[in-house]
Every structure is written in C-alpha cells, then in structure tokens.
C-alpha cells in the first residue's frame, strides 16, 4: 500500500501474482466511470441515424441492422472491460497490454460501418495504433531494464529514477493507442452510427490518458 500526495491513499489491492491491481480514490473513480459506460452500452439501444438529403426537404432515419448492432455492442463491451483493466492495473506492462486492447477494440467498434469515409479514418487510426507499439512497449521495456521492475508500487514516489525517455515513450504510446489529443481521425470516426458504442471510444481513450498521467507523475 502506498500513500502519495498525488491521488490519495491506496484503498485496496487485488494481487494476481506479480501484477497487483490497486484502487486509489482516483483510479476507483475512473474504474467506476468505465463500468458505468459499459453498462450504458449494454442497456441502451442505439439512436436512429438522421440523414438530411441535400436538395430535398426530407429527413430520413434509419436503424443499424441487427448483426452490425450486435457486433458493435460486443466490441463496446470489450472496450469497456479493457478500459476498466487499464484504470486499475498496477503493472506498467499490463497497463500497456490493456491499452493496446483499447486501441484495437476502438477500431473494431467502427469497423462494421459501411461508410467509406469512416473506414478510411479508422484505417489511419489503426496505422497509428500499430506504430504506437514502439513507444508503448519500448517505454515499458526501458523502464524494466533501467529500474529492474515493472510494478508501479515499487517505482512510486521517485525512489527509483525512471528515465525521461521511458516516460515520454509511454505517454506517446498511450496517445497513439487512445488517440487522446489527436482527434482528427476520431472526429471522422464519430460520424459512424451507434451513439452508445461510439461514445465508448472516447470514454476509453480519455480514461487511459488520465491513467498514464497519473502513472508518470507517480513513478
């Protein structure tokens, strides 16, 4: 257990061997937020997509077809679970894997869209998530090599110096997987249908971004 003046004291921890998940007030709230939106994705039906046809007065609404809807929901739930895992993970590499799962499921949510424009954006986003493997896993590996541990508890409090490059790499990696600040492709992705599921993309990417900020300040 640790008690740093950053996010409040650790409330409880769940050990899984070397990987100890823990909850502080901060991570607990992030976790609950992810859980809440996962529940919303399970419970709510998608909105009807309204299209205004240019040159006409008509506005047309349409529902997402069944298989697409089921697939999107499945992906959104997977994305929520990955985000929940990332918010409470107490191990840097484990966090990185959860993060890459977030990246992949985010692409999955929009992959069922038939809109060429959305797919183009999703592909660009996908390329970024694949490049992000270098900084993400590279950052974790540099942390392990220079400090001899991956546990956030061991590294917390600045007792062991984590090199600046490793921290910068981790932040960049999470930015790539979650696309946190570069929302260009994401803005296009948002055009896809299925509000509860599309929203999950933003929820998860914000949560992992918030979590990495906490991690790099803590270590």
């Amino acid at each position: 257990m640790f008690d740093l003046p950053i996010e409040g004291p650790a409330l409880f921890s769940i050990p899984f061997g070397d990987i100890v998940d823990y909850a502080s007030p901060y991570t607990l709230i992030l976790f609950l937020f992810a859980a809440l939106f996962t529940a919303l994705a399970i419970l709510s039906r998608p909105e009807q997509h309204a299209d205004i046809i240019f040159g006409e007065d008509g506005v047309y609404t349409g529902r997402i077809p069944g298989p697409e809807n089921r697939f999107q929901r499945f992906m959104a739930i997977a994305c929520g679970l990955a985000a929940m895992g990332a918010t409470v993970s107490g191990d840097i590499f484990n966090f990185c894997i959860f993060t890459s799962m977030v990246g992949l499921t985010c692409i999955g949510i929009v992959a069922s869209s038939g809109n060429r424009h959305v797919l183009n954006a999703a592909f660009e986003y996908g390329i970024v998530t694949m490049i992000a493997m270098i900084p993400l896993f590279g950052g974790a590996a540099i942390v392990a090599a220079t400090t001899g541990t991956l546990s956030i508890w061991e590294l917390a409090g600045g007792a062991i110096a984590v090199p600046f490059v490793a921290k910068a790499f981790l932040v960049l990696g999470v930015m790539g997987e979650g696309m946190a600040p570069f929302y260009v492709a994401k803005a296009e992705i948002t055009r896809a249908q299925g509000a509860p599921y599309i929203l999950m993309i933003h929820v998860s990417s914000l949560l992992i971004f918030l979590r990495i900020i906490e991690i790099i300040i803590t270590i």
Partner: protein
Amino acid sequence: MREREIREGHGSMVSRISRFISDFDNLVPAYALMIACVALIGLLTLPLLTYEPDQIYPKTLNPSSPLNPYDRGGAPFTAAEVHAQYPENAPYIGYVTGYLTPLSRFFAATTQYMGTTIVAHPGGIIDEILYYTRGLDTIVETSILFVAFAVASFLYRRREE
C-alpha cells in the same frame, strides 16, 4: 504544387498548422514526427540510462545442461529458485519451473540440443511467468487475439456473403 498548397494551407501560421492537422492523412506523419523527436532525445540523453543489474527473473546460462538455455534448476514437484516481484503473492512459485513432463525428461536424457522444446513443453520458467506470476498479461493477450479475429471474421463474412 497546387495539391501541396491545399495540403499545407496558406495564410497565417496558425491557419497553416490548422489546415495541416485537419487532414487526417497527415495524422500518421505528425505522430511519426513526435516519436522521432523523442527517439532523438533518447539518443542525446543516452548516457543517463543505466542497465539495472538487479533484475527480476534473471537469466543464468549453463551450456552443459540439456535444458540450456533455460536451466533454472529445481526437481519435479519441488520449488526452484525464482526471483519474482512479489513472491508472497505466489505461494507455489518455482514448482512450474522445476517440473518436467515424462516426455521432456526423455528428451533431456537423450539429447543435449532440445532445451527450447523442453521448456516450451508444459513446465519451465516461461510457463511459470506466463501462466502464474504474470497470468493476467496472458489473459489480456488472448483476449486481444480473440477481439482481432472477431473483427476480421466479421468483416470477411459480411464481404463474402
């Protein structure tokens, strides 16, 4: 030339940058540029990095062992010495490392060159880490594979039908 102008924009500095980042084709270059910058910083601050000699799960090589390069000691159903992060969370640590199936014992007795096969077979240090002490990683990893194939097979089937 015209295309370049459209891509990079004209006018004030701010609107030029805005034009550049508003095209998602430029997303990958922008991201790659940032990684390259950090890698350069890494190159410049390289002397600040030091390899920590006290690592968890250190490697020891014993070229004469039939289990080389994965001989971490231990006999079947006894615990081998494993330097984990939190040994207190894994009461039976070292047992998987030490275990050899009958088949791998046969390999070990027969030949000197099957070390990798033996350790990839159930039991051994890698299984210890992947299944026991860092099992959560493996759960997430198999889930990622699962999700990726769900995406791929969904798209494939929808296209081919």
